[in-house]
């Protein structure tokens, strides 16, 4: 059962539909066809050949185009489910419980169900990954099974084909030449077809003109590209293959860059610009008063010298100064830093005046850097203000003791000790924003709030993805394959001069019959060939639109 022997003596692999040598139909099915099924040039699809062991069965399953298309359709439908409601990773909520609540609150029972079924994180689910994996297996197996036999069969093409092969092509012609000397016909065909950039081979009274055979490799090349791409995607899941971190950095700060060991970033300035246009109708409808024009962080990138350990920021080398904007990330050493977010007007420093409550006389002002307050501020001889305690994010009292909720100066509060020539032992006052100062005893002096300076915070993302080159290669290979398979087509013309002097012609293309016919029209006229017919055309004699094209 390993081989099928054709009448011509050629041994074909089991499952071959059309003899690889002479082209005679081999199967009953092929013999019965009016026009031969020329898929894969009738070569045996490997999987169909054996169906014995379990491995063969699995292999055959994945080799089937039906299975492949089903997998595509299932993936397609599954993907659409993920767009009903937002995906989990796009929701601004800190904890899992909050996210669960989000779905219920915003989308009711359906939303709850959506969350509970795991559709809210569909694209990261195990079954979606399996689906893509099965698709990959299908692509690989089906390509191997079809590509290799097709390649062999096209490589070993004979010029001369059996009559039964030719007559069963979609486009055939049979008859005497319409004009001139029949003995020169093959030369004329060869001449014209060469001009049309066909490769012409001859064998006695037979001729084969062939063009763009490479186009047949298109599908296999694009499948290879897809596999490279999917392989790249797979690598991304391996720890260390890609960095995806975020950081908040305030103006003036120097911070170690998360995920980017040995590098430090200084945020010099964050800039937000808006357009000053008149609001458009769309803006009014959406209630947007200003449209952002630019988000920008001016930064300096530093690198630690070789051999320096963590935290050693003594001898940082400035490696790059850059303005990070949306669409213009800072790129260095394979890392990219993106402008993602911002917060405006965080308190930076506060200025207070030391004044006499009664007279209103000022003894001077002091400016406190809220991220680096000093112990005391000397205003003059015998006049100074000490900070006894500082609560950057004052959140109320607990057991009489002031508390701070975080390290950020969102709501600064101070315990001041005011030392003045009048009160050299000092007066104590607790000062916070928006509340009357709390004093120990009846003070003569008070700290009056003068003004505040603010600064902005940049939200940045740090990314590195070593799989990107693989994805790029995969993408390019895919596109090349797609272009080859779509924009070029494999065309063949077989001609045979029969004993009785008539010509038998047959032509085939994998795509674009219209283009093939154009070539045939040219050669038919030039070499005075009998008019070809398209065996799949309706036998409609009326002139139809499009038929008149040269």
């Amino acid at each position, binding site marked *: 059962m390993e081989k099928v022997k054709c009448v011509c003596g050629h041994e074909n692999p089991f499952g071959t539909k059309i003899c690889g040598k002479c082209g005679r139909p081999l199967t009953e099915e092929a013999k019965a066809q009016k026009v031969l099924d020329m898929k894969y040039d009738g070569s045996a699809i490997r999987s169909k050949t*054996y169906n014995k*062991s379990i*491995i*063969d069965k*699995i*292999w055959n399953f*994945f080799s089937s185009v039906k299975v492949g298309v089903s997998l595509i359709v299932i993936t397609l439908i599954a993907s659409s489910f993920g767009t009903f409601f937002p995906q989990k990773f796009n929701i601004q909520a800190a904890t899992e419980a909050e996210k669960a609540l989000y779905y219920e609150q915003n989308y009711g029972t359906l939303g709850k169900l959506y969350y509970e079924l795991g559709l809210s994180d569909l694209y*990261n689910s*195990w079954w979606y*990954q*399996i689906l893509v*994996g*099965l698709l*990959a*297996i299908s692509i*690989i*197996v089906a390509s*191997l099974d079809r590509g290799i036999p097709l390649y062999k069969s096209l490589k070993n093409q004979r010029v001369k084909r059996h009559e039964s092969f030719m007559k069963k092509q979609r486009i055939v012609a049979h008859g005497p030449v319409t004009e001139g000397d029949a003995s020169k016909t093959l030369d004329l065909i060869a001449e014209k077809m060469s001009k049309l950039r066909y490769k012409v081979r001859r064998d006695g009274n037979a001729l084969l003109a062939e063009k763009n055979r490479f186009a047949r490799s298109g599908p296999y090349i694009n499948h290879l590209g897809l596999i490279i791409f999917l392989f790249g995607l*797979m690598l991304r*899941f*391996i*720890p*260390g293959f890609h960095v995806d971190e975020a950081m908040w950095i305030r103006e003036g700060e*120097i*911070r*170690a860059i*998360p995920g980017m*060991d040995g590098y*430090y970033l200084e945020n010099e300035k964050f800039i937000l610009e808006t357009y000053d246009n008149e609001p458009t109708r769309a803006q009014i409808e959406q209630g947007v008063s200003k449209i952002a024009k630019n988000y920008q962080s001016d930064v300096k990138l530093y690198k630690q010298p070789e051999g*320096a*350990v*963590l*935290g*050693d*920021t003594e001898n940082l080398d400035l490696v790059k100064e850059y303005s990070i904007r949306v669409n213009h990330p800072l790129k260095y050493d394979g890392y990219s830093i993106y402008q993602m977010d911002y917060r405006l007007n965080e308190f930076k420093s506060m200025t207070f005046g030391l004044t006499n409550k009664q007279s209103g006389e000022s003894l001077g002002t002091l400016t406190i850097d809220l*991220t*680096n*307050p*000093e*112990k005391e501020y000397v205003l003059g001889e015998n006049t100074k203000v000490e*900070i006894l*305690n*500082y609560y*950057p*994010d004052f959140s109320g009292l607990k057991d009489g003791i002031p*508390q*701070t*909720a*975080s*390290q950020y100066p969102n709501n600064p509060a101070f315990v001041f000790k005011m030392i003045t020539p009048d009160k050299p032992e000092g007066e104590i006052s607790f000062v916070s924003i928006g509340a009357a100062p709390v004093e120990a005893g009846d003070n003569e002096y008070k700290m009056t709030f003068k003004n505040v300076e603010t600064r902005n915070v940049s939200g940045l993302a740090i990314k590195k993805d070593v799989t990107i080159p693989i994805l790029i290669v995969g993408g390019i290979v895919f596109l090349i394959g797609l272009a080859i398979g779509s924009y070029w087509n494999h065309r063949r013309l077989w001609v045979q001069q029969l004993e009785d002097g008539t010509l038998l012609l047959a032509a085939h293309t994998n795509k674009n019959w219209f283009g093939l016919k154009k070539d045939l029209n040219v050669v038919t006229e030039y070499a005075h060939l009998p008019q070809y017919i398209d065996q799949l055309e309706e036998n409609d004699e009326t002139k139809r639109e499009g038929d008149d094209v040269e």
Partner: protein
Amino acid sequence: MDKKKKRMVIRGLILGLLACAIIYTIYNSATKDKVEVLQDGDKAPDFELVDLEGNTHRLSDYKGQGVFLNFWGTWCEPCKKEMPALERQYQQFKDQGVQVLAVNIAQSNFEVQNYVDQLHLTFPVVIDKTKSVMQAYNVGQLPASFLIDPEGKVKRIPPGELSEQQIQTYMESIKPE
């Protein structure tokens, strides 16, 4: 017959390889949140930070001693509860070769000094101004403690706030032989 076997092996290999790739990918994606965290037995990342007096402390300088590494902030309440216990145990163990290094997260000298004074802390307190050490140790919530043995390896990473009893046990465990 031989050819058949060869075909089986090749097909089996390809299918097996692809199946492994899928399983491996799913495994990786399921565990991706848990990677890159420092684990018991890892080498503790070396660092160099400056304390309030301006002295530089380098972790590797303490080789041969156990190091109780503690990350904290003034706003963190459990840290405040933990500190006095840590101080008492420090007094017990400092002569037995166990060092305490308290790393403050990027706060001002003033605040840290104030805190140290109020709680009468005597062990070295350093400030991680750029948060580089915090990031290298993957510190999320405060307080966070790391027990580093005399060889410079992470012995244990107890989660959250520790009781005095726990601190004592842990210090005992990193005492040099």
